[in-house]
């Protein structure tokens, strides 16, 4: 999706979603004010819930599509190769306040979005003919981007949060093929697990 840089929003993390983003980027708050291009809709939380539901409904099929496309040994060694052991994954506390949950959700979506960008980039090289997988990864990334926009809008409009520190997963560009596949599989396993929790929490 083509995106024009939006200078109005200081917290425009969309720019960080470019392929290759693998390390935390310094988010420098421009100022304390928080403004959006147009007012956020009143049903924003409902939209966030729907987005999480949408992501949750497709997470498992994305995971299956991914490890199937990688070929052996992935489909028969999911426990070893695709266990959701992702270090530095942002935490989420379902019993927190809405603001805290939204901030944590923001971090998770930013992390997942960047990681999904890496996976998409790697898969286009490693499995250039897995068009179904590419399409599903892109669609998921688009939904994550929309979710990030909604969360940002909510944080900004209701809680006046203008800055959230985010972290990103490891950059896979220097890894070998197997490691790229394995890290992607682990990330999607984690994504499937986390998104179910998030869909419940909101």
């Amino acid at each position, binding site marked *: 999706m083509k995106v024009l840089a939006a200078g109005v929003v200081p917290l*425009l993390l969309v720019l960080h979603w470019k392929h290759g983003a693998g390390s935390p980027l310094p988010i420098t708050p421009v100022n304390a004010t928080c403004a959006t291009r*147009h007012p956020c809709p009143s049903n924003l939380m409902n939209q966030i819930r*729907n987005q999480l539901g*949408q992501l949750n409904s*497709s997470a498992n099929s994305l995971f299956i599509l991914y490890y199937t496309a990688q070929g052996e040994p992935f489909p028969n060694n999911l426990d070893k190769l695709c266990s959701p052991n992702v270090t530095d994954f942002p935490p989420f506390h379902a019993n927190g306040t809405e603001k805290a949950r939204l901030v944590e959700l923001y971090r998770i979506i930013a992390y997942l979005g960047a990681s999904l960008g890496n996976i998409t980039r790697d898969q286009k090289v490693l499995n250039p003919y897995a068009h179904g997988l590419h399409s599903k990864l892109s669609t998921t990334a688009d939904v994550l981007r929309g*979710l990030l926009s909604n969360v940002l809008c909510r944080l900004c409009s209701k809680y006046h949060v203008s800055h959230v520190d985010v972290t990103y997963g490891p950059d896979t560009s220097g890894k070998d093929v197997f490691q790229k596949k394995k890290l992607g599989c682990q990330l999607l396993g984690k994504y499937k697990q986390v998104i179910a929790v998030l869909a419940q929490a909101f």
Partner: protein
Amino acid sequence: MPTQILQIAFIQKYLCKMFTLQTWIVQALFIFLTTESIGELIVPCAHIHPESSVVQLGSNFTAVCVLKEKCMDDYHVTANDIFWKTGRVPVPYEQYSVINRTASSVTFPNITLINALLTCNIRMFGQINRSVYGIRIISGLPPEKPKNLSCIVNEGKKMMCQWDPGRETYLETNYTLKSEWATEKFDDCKAKRDTPTSCTVDYPPVYFVNIEVWVEAENALGKVTSDHINFDPVDKVKLNPPHILSVNSSKELSSILKLTWTDSRFKSFITLKYDIQYRTKDASTWNQVPPEDTSSTRSSFTVQDLKPFTEYVFRIRCMKEDGKGYWSDWSEEASGITYEDRPSKAPNFWYKIEPSHAHGTRSIQLKWKTLPPFEANGKILDYEVTLTKWKSHSQNYTVKDTKLTVNLTNDRYVATLTARNLVGKSDASVLTIPAWDFQATHPITDLKAFPKDNVLWVEWTAPNESVNRYILEWCVLSDKSPCIPDWQQEDGTVHRTYLRAPSRGPTVRTKKVGKNEAVLEWDHLPIDVQNGFIRNYTIFYRTVIGNEIAVNVDSSHTEYTLSSLTSDTLYMVRMAAYTDEGGKDGPEFTFTTPKFAQGEIEAIVVPVCLAFLLTTLLGVLFCFNKRDLIKKHIWPNVPDPSKSHIAQWSPHTPPRHFNSKDQMYPDGNFTDVSVVEIEANDKKPFPEDLKSLDLFKKEKVNTEGHSSGIGGSSCMSSSRPSISSSDENESAQNTSSTVQYSTVVHSGYRHQVPSVQVFSRSESTQPLLDSEERPEDLQLVDNVDGSDGILPRQRYFKQNCSQHETSPDISHFERSQQVSSVNEEDFVRLKQQQISDHISQPYGSGKMKMFQEVPAVDAFGPGIEGQVERFETVGMEDAVDEGMPKSYLPQTVRRGGYMPQ
């Protein structure tokens, strides 16, 4: 330096879209053509302000033309000499205003729709008009604020928005769709020129995020923005239609059909609702499943309250449950047939006593009406008739027909009738057949019939006693047809009815008969024979030996296609029209299905014909390309002496000077028939030839010529110059003295070598040539030394008689012989045999080469004609090389034919 001003003819019609470019072109033309100097900076003679001239319709427009001082000096003009034109039409002077000495303005009040060239012109020296500058004026309107902006997201595609652009602007107007989230902006979507009212964005839709969209319209006169609309794309979705997987009936319930389908992936995260419609196959209106029954996501639905054994057609569409968005398109239609149910009504039942000659018995024909489909509830397999005599056992009959004739005693009987289908039997119709002596004691009275409302009513007075039912019998009274009784049954409570059953059935005919199908058509029954409302038609068709098949057709139809027919088969078809009260068969119609489908024969014949034509064409082309070869093998050219042209041998013909044969025949493809002659003669015993040759020799010596006849075709004549000479004069002389009076048949035909050379004397009375009549000329020729001609003859021999190198000894031999008058090669051969071995041997070897060449020549050479032709050419060459002033050589050489003599 004098200023050059050129008149420019401008094209009046310019397209609106091109106006900018054209303005530039116009200005460029003026710059280039209205100049003050050549080779220096081009300076226009004047300027018009404003340069850009898009004018709003209805406004005033003023343009000012300012002359350059230098131009004014050169042409001695001022602003008073300026006049304006729009296109080629001068602008009235009333619209002018001279501002000062150099500037003149023109004003167009309340400007109308215009797209024209406005030029500033000067009038020089009284009469000469020159255009000095021009601008294009285009009028139009600023864009209106786009209205009714709406967007739609077709599932699987990108979002498309459309709007009402408002009034026509008459100008090039750009419409740009802008969109953004609360946190970021998307790329603009520029509407295409041909669809300025819509635009499809180039990013995929993201649901559950509000997007704000608006349209900007801009042209040369202004820019305007539509109202912004803010929506969630999921509320603008038009889903893909569901796909109906199956329509299943239930054996337990004949009134239901279960519909199953698959639909959008959206149902995994949004709730859908459905719209299901159904109809019977022949109906045109749809029934609606109550929306509240399908207001949630599901993948199947059971439709109830359907008629048994009836085909229903279904379609379904879906949308978001909350009603936001658009209904999907209707799915593909799918149909299913409800299961059969037992016949819902007993057939109407009656009897007729037929005369019987047997004593004590009577023949009874029981007859009943077929049940209409909506009462049969399935396919009626058969009817069961039970006849019970008083205090006796029953007789059971199973009948497929609608009548049964039985012989009964004169006793009273009770008959019952049931119709049976796959599921069960109908209720029984009970009919009492009274004993033969039964007298009806209370008949009805006052039976009347009268037409009313286009039907025939029957009215009667009921008896006092209770009545179970009435049976009405009638027939059509006609002079043309006998009285065929028909009947109908009425309840016992009524005393008035109309004749409801059709009095006749529809007449079916074929509209089109195919190999495996037939289109039947019929006319609606006239109202006066319908006797009620036609509920449906039934088509019965069968082959001579096959079972009858019945097809029910809705009463609104007048056409039906029978399919799965057998080709080349006779079919019998009839139709029955049914009202609520029964049906009536129409006449039977027969047709035969063709053996081949339409176009099938053509599909076979046409390719065969085309293939034949193609083969023929290829054959002709092949023959055309190989015509020389074919001609050679089939009808080689045979010279006709009567068509010879002696004139061409005229001594007055100027000689041609060829330096070599190669010049005359660049292809160098020479083959000489004389070789054949030599070969042929070589195979012949010499003593025989010797006589003839001696004879020839004598003749030639006497006549200073030879009579080899058709020289061109004769190997003898062809070989003559080669052998006899070293002496060119003699060669020429021999040629010139040749009398074309005889024909030589030689060389055989095709590859055959004749065993004997045949010389036939021509009957021609053509006078002798001059050379023969003037021997002194020949003598002169004889005196010319022909030593120079040896080499050409050698070449001739090489090329004509052999493709190999001919031994130079031959030339030597020829020179040594110096045969002055005897030129016949046979003679030479004779002489040759008589000379010493050291001479004959090389010649013999050379000769052998030649002989060996013959088959090759025949096989690979261009043919006999070619050989002869080349021979003639050689003769000509010899003469030419010698520079004979009086040459009797052929003037033309025709390839593939004989040299004209």
